[in-house]
């Protein structure tokens, strides 16, 4: 059995899964809405688990909750794609390339 694979066929949430969940949620409105409404159910369908040996993995659960909440924000009003695009543009406009802590 591969590392992180559970007996019932689902595997434990990995950072790769996190990335693909975010990527899919940004692109696919149906997936996003389903995920925001029922993150656990959506993960189950994807055969991804947030338990280890039947015990809840609090850190994985917190991360999934944070993602669902952020996606929920994006669903208000404008589409998530548009909101992220606006965000991206505003950074590029304001970026002066400086990496420095402020003098205060």
């Amino acid at each position, binding site marked *: 059995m591969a590392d992180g694979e559970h007996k019932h066929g689902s595997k434990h949430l990995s*950072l790769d899964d*996190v990335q693909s969940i975010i990527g899919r949620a*940004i692109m696919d409105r149906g997936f996003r809405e389903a995920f925001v409404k029922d993150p656990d159910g959506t993960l189950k369908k994807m055969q991804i688990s947030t338990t280890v040996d039947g015990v809840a993995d609090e850190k994985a659960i*917190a991360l999934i909750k944070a993602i669902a909440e952020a996606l929920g924000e994006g669903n208000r009003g404008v589409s998530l794609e548009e909101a992220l695009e606006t965000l991206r543009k505003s950074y*590029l406009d304001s970026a002066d*390339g400086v*990496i420095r802590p402020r003098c205060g």
Partner: protein
Amino acid sequence: MTPHEKRRGVHIVSLPFTSLQYPNLGASLLTTALRGRGIKCALDYFAFDFATRIGVESYLMLSHENFYQAFLGEWIFSDLVFERPEDLDMEYLATVLPDFAEPLEVLQLMSLALSARSKTRDFIDSCAASVAAQEPALVGVTTSFQQNLASVAFAKALKLRAPHIPIIFGGANCEAELGQNLLKQFDAIDAVCSGEGDMSFPTFVEMYLQTGVLPNVAGILTREAGATDSQTTPGVLDLDALPIPDFSDFYASFDGTPGLSDLLQPAPTIETSRGCWWGAKHHCTFCGLNGNSMAYRSKSPERALTEFRHQADQYGADFVVVDNILDYAYFDSLLPMLRDDPHPYLMHYEVKSNLFPKHIDAMAKAGIRKIQPGIETLDTGILKLMKKGVTALQNIQTLKLCAQAGIFVDWGFIFGFPDEDPQSYQRMADLIPHLHHLQPPAAFAPVRADRFSPYFSRPADYNVDLSPAAPYRYIYAGVGEDLGQFSYHHQMSGAGIDAAHEYSRCTRTAVTNWIECHGQALYYIEDQTAQDFTLIDHRGPSKRRSHLSRLESDIIRQCSCINSYHRVVEQLAPDYETKEIEAAIDGLLEISALVSERRTLLALPLAGGGYKCAPNWSEIRARNLQEAGQSVEA
């Protein structure tokens, strides 16, 4: 030096995350100094290669200063140095990152960071392979701010490929005990240049190339000399003696990065001084800049001008000045020289906030169109606690005079100072709506105890306890009690500030509104040549137009800069009754055309310069270019 070693020369590398827009001044100075001594020296800006791998836009987002305190740049490379279970990374993403960004930003940053992280191992390997293939005699690694983890990962990878090549670290992350710690913790590092390396590093390299043995040079720590042997670097006393840095390596990398020039305009860096003349006398309590080299030194105006001209001829007249504070003597020397020079200079300077119109005028004419005056807050009591040496009214005056002159003020609001008065936040929240036409802060953030600051060095004096900022635990994972030896930023607790987030909430809300309405909130004198002023007031939702009497207009004139109540009355007394003047001042305070502090007054509407509110940076830039074009035509 042996011809063999000399031929192989030195390789200096700069790893992510660092600026793609400005050359690294320290590394460029050292490269130039070595080349000046006849030593072959290559300078590799590997950050550009990484930006190409992950996408330039992604790189810019991940390194944006808004999220600087999340240390994403370090987190992305950290698992190459400190292996750890994935759940610790999940905890970072779920609990730390959201403290530094809005929910949607968090989502985007998570996605970009995870994607970038999956590319770090190949990237570091390729950097090491490329350097090893050139067989340099010695490799220098420059690390400042968020370059530490990529730098250590690179050193480890290079050591595996070429164990015989000595690796020396330098840069701000190697200052004092930070440098000692790097040498102690990582076997791949053979030496650390701590503090200013302008003299010590070239001497060290020259001696090594001659003998093949790492020499003992003051300011350079080696295992042989003892990692904890804190030899201090002799700071450069005569900055005129430094070479003019060669930025050709940076520009070659910039030009070789596809798509970058569509997003950024590169600009040369310049330093006209080192240290801080204010901090040398009254160290601001939170400031860790300058490490152990606070002593102030500046270039002669002639030498500084030569460097400005030389770089402008090669790379254009937009500059990034890296000084921590402008030399006051320059107001009468360098600034008029820059004003009279034909190059259309445009630059940023850090200054102290006690500026008068003549200073602002001199800066604007010299092309200093962006300043960082360290405003930090709008409460005199808190400014006193941080030893800033200015009052709230002086800070407001700086914002107003700069708005009038078309100078962008870059500043951040900080809160949570030990022993501050929680009530002051309600007062600031009440004041801020009257300042909506001025430049708002870029952010509202808690004060930190940075390493080398008084808060860090003497926490007991301020009754605070320190702990490394939250992200460090996830970046330097597994170092346990040694964490405090890696950290630069620290959070404070005690001294009444544990509830600071709560009691400062009203000011945070006021600042958020200020940022949101900036650009639409106008406040200005309609016609300054008129004897009786009309004020156009669009600071709030209700748009007002107020016609002032002659007396009220005269008071506004008298208070264009901070003036004492007593003097205003005295100056207008020949023409008006004292009671009349006092009543008019009260009326102007009532409509917030004036602000007052301890019997001093300042008028708030903008006058002159043609601006109705503080202009944004792109407006200032465009106007500067237009004016430069006109003066060239003339």
